[in-house]
């Protein structure tokens, strides 16, 4: 009946809302949240140095670990995601099947369970240091999401591009490498940025693996000083400031890319 009606689509990312000037409400909200968080954190530290300043001094190495895990995992996830994405659009049935299976299996298991599983499963068979295990666990999960981003990106490139390349005498893989994928990269940049922020937040899950990230440092502090409320206030504010900072950065990047078109 309604076959001709265009499907309405909504886009909701799991990372963070990217503030752009187009959405004025969000833009204002970003400002209030970002500067508000910094102000609250600053005021607390100034007005009540015990325990707030003590907490703030305790956690910085945790922030470094959080960044290491996030950056390491996103880089590895990009590689896995590109392979999975190419597999998902491949004509080769084996490659397509394997990539689809990977995406389906990973997306069907909660991240927390995956992290536990990969970390301790890895430990059973090979000797991998804890931080690297955590990075691998995060990357295997996010590789599946990234794979879907790349698939969508590749499929968004008009068919004519591939056909034109083939007419010019390129093989399918050459056309992929030199024509389609480079264009797809531009398209996938914003969603990849969004995944980066989602991963940054989810990296707090690795604290269950005794990786001394921001959350674990906070928990260690709280468990010794019994200042649960104060500690988690600081931890939440730090995460908020970091994610808002990056969402802004990605927003600026996005605008630059769009302006270049």
């Amino acid at each position, binding site marked *: 009946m309604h076959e001709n009606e265009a499907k309405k689509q909504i886009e909701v990312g799991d990372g963070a809302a990217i503030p752009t000037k187009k959405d004025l409400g969000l833009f204002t909200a970003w400002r209030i949240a970002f500067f508000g968080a910094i102000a609250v954190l600053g005021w607390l530290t100034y007005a009540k140095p015990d325990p707030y300043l003590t907490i703030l001094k305790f956690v910085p190495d945790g922030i470094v670990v959080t960044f290491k895990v996030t950056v390491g995992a996103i880089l590895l996830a990009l590689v896995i995601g590109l392979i999975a994405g190419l597999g998902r659009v491949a004509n080769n049935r084996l490659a397509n099947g394997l990539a689809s299976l990977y995406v389906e299996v990973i997306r069907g298991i909660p991240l927390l369970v995956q992290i536990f599983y990969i970390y301790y499963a890895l430990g059973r068979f090979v000797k991998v240091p804890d931080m690297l*295990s955590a990075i691998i666990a995060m990357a295997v999960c996010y590789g599946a999401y990234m794979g879907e981003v790349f698939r969508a990106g590749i499929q968004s490139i008009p068919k004519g591009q591939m056909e034109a390349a083939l007419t010019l005498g390129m093989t399918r893989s050459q056309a992929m490498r030199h024509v389609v994928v480079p264009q797809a990269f531009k398209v996938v940049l914003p969603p990849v940025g969004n995944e980066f922020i989602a991963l940054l937040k989810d990296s707090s899950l690795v604290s269950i693996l005794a990786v001394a990230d921001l959350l674990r440092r906070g928990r*260690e502090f709280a468990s010794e000083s019994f200042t649960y409320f104060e500690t988690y206030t600081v931890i939440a504010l730090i995460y908020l400031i970091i994610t808002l900072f990056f969402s802004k950065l990605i927003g600026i990047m996005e605008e630059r890319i769009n302006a270049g078109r």
Partner: protein
Amino acid sequence: MKKLLLLLLPVLALTLSVVSPALAARTITVATDATWPPMEMVDANKNIVGYDIDFLNAAAKEAGFKVVFKNTAWDGIFAGLDSGQYDAVISSVTITPERQKKYDFSLPYIDAGQILVVPKSERATRLADMKGKKIGAQIGTTGAFEIKKVNGVELKTYDEIGLAFEDMAAGRIQGVVCDEPTAIIYALQKKEYKAKFKIAGKPFTKEAYGICVKKGNKELVSLLNRGITAVKKKKIDQQLKKKWLK
């Protein structure tokens, strides 16, 4: 007749609610992190069992109250006491001056000490000889605090002690510190681990466990103390030690 009954029901309920505290024994909700064998753990039938559980039940019987146990993650177990989610914590809690500042404790009910567990190949017998190595403990335990005191040893904290032992089996850490009874279970009795681990040296701390309650809850402390004293007097704790700790 029915109507009369219906009318009487609220009256009955009201009377019961006034009288019942005097009739029925008082019930105390107690949190425990049941991941610390043999003191507190979950058995194959999903029951919370262990020395602490038996001890508190015995004390409750002596002092005339009832206990409902609540399995609670260790990390945050004291926070739940603050927010009133339960009345007390019995979870191999060492009485320390830091904890006494924030919470009140019953009389000590058993003594224990921290001990180091290492892989079979390890020669060191003391934490001080493990410089440059990673040692694991459960987060917020006296074991973790002891590791932190030693310069040059890196502390890794885990949510549960079992995860620390699994990480040592995977070679990611080179030692685990926990209470002696728990160390014995993991290093000498678990079949996955007993070929791999050994206990290094002797317990290096002297600690006393107490039942932890919210600061100022004097009435509950005296009730618990009454039970603890009676259990010790009747030497029930000796029987429990035989049952769980040998």
